[in-house]
């Protein structure tokens, strides 16, 4: 590649981390930040078996999020299995000298909310974590991706990882976002368009006027869901929005170092004329509030649509897919989405539990009452404090919802907070897989405002009329 070859954002960040490029196409990459959580215990066991040390404890940060209770007091964890998971993380991090944002730490929260919030996530970094939603951190212009336990162990021991370079895909979002439409709607529209494996083997760059106008929080939601299209990562070129977000955060560079960083970060944007392996464009003007009806995030439709009818599907394999999804979701073909009654709502997760998300839900819920029970779990303990300062907790409580603590909670249900079997939940989370929120649970994904609208109407509903007079 000559000096003058125009490069993409992804190419530049990748090149800055390449230690070795082997002839067979694999590269050994340097890792700037490694996040671990309770679920990383398999990797620490591998370390123990090899009697190995953590190579770079100063670049490794741990957060208790996957298993921590998110309802009631957290001083004592009643479930012994869950208490053991949290204790094991404390022991492993203490043994290896890794900073832990544990249950008693004001910085605790969901790892993908905490990283950006604490200034650990910076433009141009390579970030990994044993969690598929690590793609979130790409919103700041980092190359960030999820890895498995063996790779976690490899990073712990060497601070490096072998990778084959993924292909590059650019998704350009043109036009202008209409009022009441959120980043969640954009990303669900993208996944519906390209499919749950539409970006497999690719690193996505999101670009275009709509992305540049998005807040940092909206960008985090967008990159978070990249994995639901199969992508290795999602990235956005760092700009003034990103720089302003990072400045002054606890672990971000300070003073002259920050100025030096700004110069480096400003050069990261994709060069004019750089080539992508695949280009996708969508017009934001065509994006309506979106909900999922099936068992994959690709099963997403505008709220004014009807559930598909397998009998009208010409392709036999597709018809079978639709029948199985509708059967699990207990939906009749052709049902209007707005006729689907729900049993419960959940507002939380690394996708949609930042302060702007809580504000959007609160805007709909102000002065209204939820017709169904529900839980609001803030993305981090810092988000929780800020929401309480703004009085959002009082709006949720007045609406009849439970105001909980921060953690992965009912998105994955491993802390015991599950949707009961057969119940239908409107959820701000990222996966509507069978049984994701608990065995037999039926999940509909949507934006925080749309979940709030579902709460006050008791069925899937368009949030826009309920937002009249509010500005998101």
């Amino acid at each position, binding site marked *: 590649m000559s000096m003058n070859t125009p490069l993409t954002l992804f190419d530049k960040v990748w090149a800055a981390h390449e230690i070795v490029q082997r002839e067979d196409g694999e590269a050994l990459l340097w890792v700037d930040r490694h996040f671990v959580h309770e679920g990383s215990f398999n990797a620490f066991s591998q370390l123990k078996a090899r009697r190995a040390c953590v190579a770079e404890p100063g670049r490794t940060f741990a957060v208790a999020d996957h298993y921590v209770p998110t309802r009631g007091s957290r001083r004592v964890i009643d479930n012994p299995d869950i208490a053991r998971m949290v204790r094991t993380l404390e022991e492993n991090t203490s043994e290896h000298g890794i900073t832990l944002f544990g249950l008693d730490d004001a910085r605790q929260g969901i790892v993908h909310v905490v990283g950006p919030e604490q200034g650990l996530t910076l433009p141009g970094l390579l970030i990994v974590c044993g969690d598929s939603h690590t793609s979130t951190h790409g919103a700041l212009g980092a190359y960030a991706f*999820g890895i*498995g336990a063996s790779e976690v162990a490899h990073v712990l021991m060497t601070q490096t990882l072998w990778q084959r370079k993924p292909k590059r895909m650019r998704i350009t979002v043109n036009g202008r976002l209409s009022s009441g439409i959120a980043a969640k709607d954009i990303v669900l529209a993208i996944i519906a368009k390209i499919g749950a494996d539409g970006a497999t083997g690719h690193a996505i760059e999101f670009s275009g006027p709509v992305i540049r106008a998005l807040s940092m929080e909206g960008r985090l939601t967008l990159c978070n869901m990249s994995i639901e299209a199969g992508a290795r990562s999602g990235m956005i070129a760092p700009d003034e929005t990103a720089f302003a977000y990072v400045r002054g955060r606890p672990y971000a560079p300070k003073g002259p170092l920050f100025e030096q960083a700004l110069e480096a970060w400003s050069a990261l944007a994709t060069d004019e004329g750089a080539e992508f392996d695949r280009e996708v464009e969508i017009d934001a003007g065509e994006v309506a509030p979106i909900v999922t009806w099936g068992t994959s995030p690709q099963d997403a439709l505008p709220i004014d649509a009807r559930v598909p009818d397998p009998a009208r599907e010409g392709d036999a394999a597709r018809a079978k897919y639709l029948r199985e999804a509708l059967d699990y979701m207990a939906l009749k073909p052709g049902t209007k989405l707005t006729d689907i009654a729900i049993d419960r709502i959940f507002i939380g997760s690394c996708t949609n539990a930042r302060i702007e998300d809580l504000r959007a839900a609160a805007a709909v819920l102000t002065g209204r009452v939820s017709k169904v029970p529900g839980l609001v779990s803030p993305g981090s303990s810092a988000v929780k404090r800020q929401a309480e300062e703004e009085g959002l907790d009082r709006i949720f409580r007045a609406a009849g919802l439970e105001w909980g603590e921060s953690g992965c909670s009912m998105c994955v249900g491993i802390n015991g907070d599950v949707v009961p079997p057969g119940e239908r939940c409107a959820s701000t989370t990222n996966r509507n897989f069978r049984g994701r929120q608990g065995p037999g649970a039926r999940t509909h994904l949507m934006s925080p405002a749309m979940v709030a609208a579902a709460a006050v109407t008791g069925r899937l509903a368009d949030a826009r009329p309920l937002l009249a007079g509010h500005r998101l």
Partner: protein
Amino acid sequence: MDKFIRLTATACPFDVANLNTDQLLPARFLKLPRSAGLGAVLLHDLRFDADGRERPDFPLNQPAWRAAKIVVGARNFGCGSSREAAVYALLDYGIRCVIAPSFGDIFGGNAVENGLLTATVSDAEAANLMRLLGEEPRLPVTIDLEQQTIKCSDKAFGFVIDRVRRTRLLNGWDSLALTASYMDKIAAFKTADRARRPWAMPSSISVRDGSGDKSDDAG
């Protein structure tokens, strides 16, 4: 790690697109240590009903496929959560190879780390294989990693696998052993990188320049 060279075994078809790792190993079993053996909970909520009884129509519960060592899947097999325990569950059950038109990226990486072969075939070849197995469930399937071929009845076709992964599987190599030979290069990179990108190290939170500590500010 066990080598993978070739295997002849019965093969169980799962004609489910986007069969994600939440299905392969439901989240509530993630607490189990690997030493417990995760084969019994592989695909738990599809294999068993709410009362823990086997669902007789599920492929893995049918007599011909109980002892399958090969799975034939549909598109995007193993998408979703990064949980490596999904691979442990397949291996602990006895599965050594998954044949499918495409795989989740993270699942593919986890598979090679543990000696599970992911063989990529076309949609038509996967459908063809599933049809053959549907007609004659006990048909043995031979998968040869050296030759990169799959044979079943009188049909034979090739499959795709990343050449690095192929070499690693054939030799049973783990990536740590390989990395050990690059430790000097890693050390040199670290030093040079520190000079090139001094801002990339986490700033010490005890050093503040007064430009605004946002530690209590989520916005």
